[in-house]
């Protein structure tokens, strides 16, 4: 049986099911009991204040506490209220969470999830709107998830919670209230497996999170012009399912990559580098890379929108890739 539930509900269900299954899972974060974005709201009623813990406003220490708890037998989930604030805990995430397993030669594990909503939704301004996922593909030992649908969110979050490594789980605020078909029955989605969101033969568009709906709109428009775009959603940036992307490229020979994070040093930069290194013979045109403007995000809605790739921009990038744009 399947129902249409929101992204928020899907995430809450994943928490609920996992916390019922495993008593070592705790949730830590600012206002997680009532829950400003509601992914954790009311969990305290079922699991009690010892497992759903409101913390002081101290992102670095919250993540630090989760690392310590994870090393000693708990499986913490940290909620960082806006993903922009992961930067306040950068030391803990980049230097500590992802590194101890390796340098302890496998003795220490840090099974933890950082759940964090973010991205531009209009009206929140420079420090509550950024898409910072790509920042976390650089430090070692971290996994990075960025789901685009409620179905994916639930299945991936359950896997993230069960994973023995630190996983960053990004939620785009524009997607939080979107609904999607989600089965009633238990399921998980392994980290590191991409999903084809639309089949096509002419151009491969790799996009994730809130760029997926835009890529699908662009694909629809292009289809009316006789161009069939394949939309590939990696769903996890680390580990990256290169096989699925490569398989698509072997059909299309054209690659476009879209993200809302800033373009410079972004996910697209990484993917384009992989494409050039490993799939050079399957590129008929330069990789087209779309991303946010390399500037702070201005507040005014007209300006914010102009800093981010649109469905139109994706259409143009696909046409450029095919050499059909002057």
């Amino acid at each position, binding site marked *: 049986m399947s129902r249409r539930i929101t992204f928020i509900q899907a995430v809450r269900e994943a928490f609920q099911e996992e916390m019922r299954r495993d008593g070592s899972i705790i949730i830590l974060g*600012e*206002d997680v*009991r*009532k829950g*400003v974005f509601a992914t954790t709201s009311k969990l305290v009623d079922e699991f009690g204040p010892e497992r759903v813990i*409101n*913390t*002081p*406003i*101290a992102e*670095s*220490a919250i993540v630090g506490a989760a690392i310590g708890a994870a090393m000693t037998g708990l499986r913490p989930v940290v909620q960082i209220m*806006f993903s*922009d*604030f992961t*930067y*306040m805990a950068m030391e803990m995430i980049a230097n500590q969470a992802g590194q101890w397993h390796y340098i302890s030669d496998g003795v220490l594990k840090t099974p933890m999830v950082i759940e964090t909503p973010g991205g531009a939704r*209009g*009206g*929140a*301004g*420079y*420090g*509550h709107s950024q898409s910072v996922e790509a920042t976390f593909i650089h430090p070692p030992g971290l996994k990075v998830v960025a789901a685009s649908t409620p179905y994916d969110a639930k299945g991936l979050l359950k896997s993230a919670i069960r994973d023995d490594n630190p996983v960053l789980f990004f939620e785009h605020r524009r997607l939080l209230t979107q609904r999607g078909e989600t089965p009633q029955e238990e399921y998980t989605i392994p980290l590191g497996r991409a999903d084809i969101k639309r089949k096509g033969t002419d151009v491969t568009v790799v996009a994730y999170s809130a760029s997926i709906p835009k890529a699908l709109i662009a694909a629809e428009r292009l289809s009316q012009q006789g161009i069939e775009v394949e939309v590939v959603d990696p769903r996890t940036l680390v580990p990256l399912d290169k096989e699925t992307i490569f398989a698509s490229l072997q059909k299309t020979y054209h690659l476009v990559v879209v993200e809302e994070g800033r373009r410079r040093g972004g996910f697209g930069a990484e993917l384009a580098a992989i494409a050039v290194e490993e799939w050079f013979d399957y590129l008929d045109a330069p990789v087209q890379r779309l991303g946010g*403007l*390399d*500037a*702070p995000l*201005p*507040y*005014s*809605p*007209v*300006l914010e929108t*102009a*800093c981010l790739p649109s469905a139109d921009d994706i259409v143009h990038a696909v046409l450029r890739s095919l050499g059909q744009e002057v």
Partner: protein
Amino acid sequence: MALDHDTLKDLYRKMVTVRLLEKRVEQLVMAARIPCSGHFGLGQEAVGVGVCGPLRKEDYLFGTHRGFAEYIGKGMTPAEILTEYYGKATSLSRGRLGQHLLKPEIGVMPLPSSLGSEFGMAVGAALSSKLRGSGRVTVNLFGEGTAGQSDFGPALEMASLWRLPLIFVCNNNQYVELAHYREVVATEDIAPRAGAYGVPYEIVDGNDITLVYQATERAASRARQGGGPTFLEFKTYRRCTHYTGDPGGYQPKEEIAAWAQKDPIDRCRRLMMAQGLWTAADEQAMLEAVSAEIEAAVQFAEESPYPDVSTIYEHIYA
């Protein structure tokens, strides 16, 4: 000691401006005329307004996200605030800042999106005043929840070590978003933490504009005389919800009602009337003038154009 009459009237008018402006902004947010959410401080107007009272124009203020009181207190106008909230080209930032109000020429310094990121910056501004001998005082306002942030301790340490002209002002409104502060703050008072760093502190009724003004005046004059930092904790209460998207319901009605009895604006008005400084006619005239100023500002913001999209490429680097 009472405040002089003109000062009191000025503070009163500013508090009323804050209250009416917040009400108006709330309506505009709910009507989706303003794209951001609003964080209001119903019942805590005396803190921001009172703290800015004894400051000079050139003194530095690092205010808060619930900060109409301090921004109006420091001299920003409703039109400056509204055009930012609307994201219009006529705003001081040409649509870039939104809620993060800024006006360096009157000492209004950055309001970081991330709570607590201002602690270090405020230390830097005070250090700069001291090294440049500018005589300027820096005020760093923050909530009791924000005192948990990681730069709080180091800021006190540096301010104390270097005897900086810095006033830490904790606006303790008893709520940290949707939680009562004692759920996430270990002690009833924040101020004694300053004592551990050798910074003198006072705990003051934040709903009494006279006391807020005078405590800040003492701290500012200490700072100007080279006496170093002071920590002030003002006890007050947020009678509204955390922000416009918060339906509330978690604050006990009796608690809200009890604090409504201690409303800082009512108290100030009663004081002025008792001193014979204020009449019902004065009140009426002032309300009309303030409302007219706000309505003119709303109209100006409404009619202003959005910024030109090409401006997004300007000022990425200096």
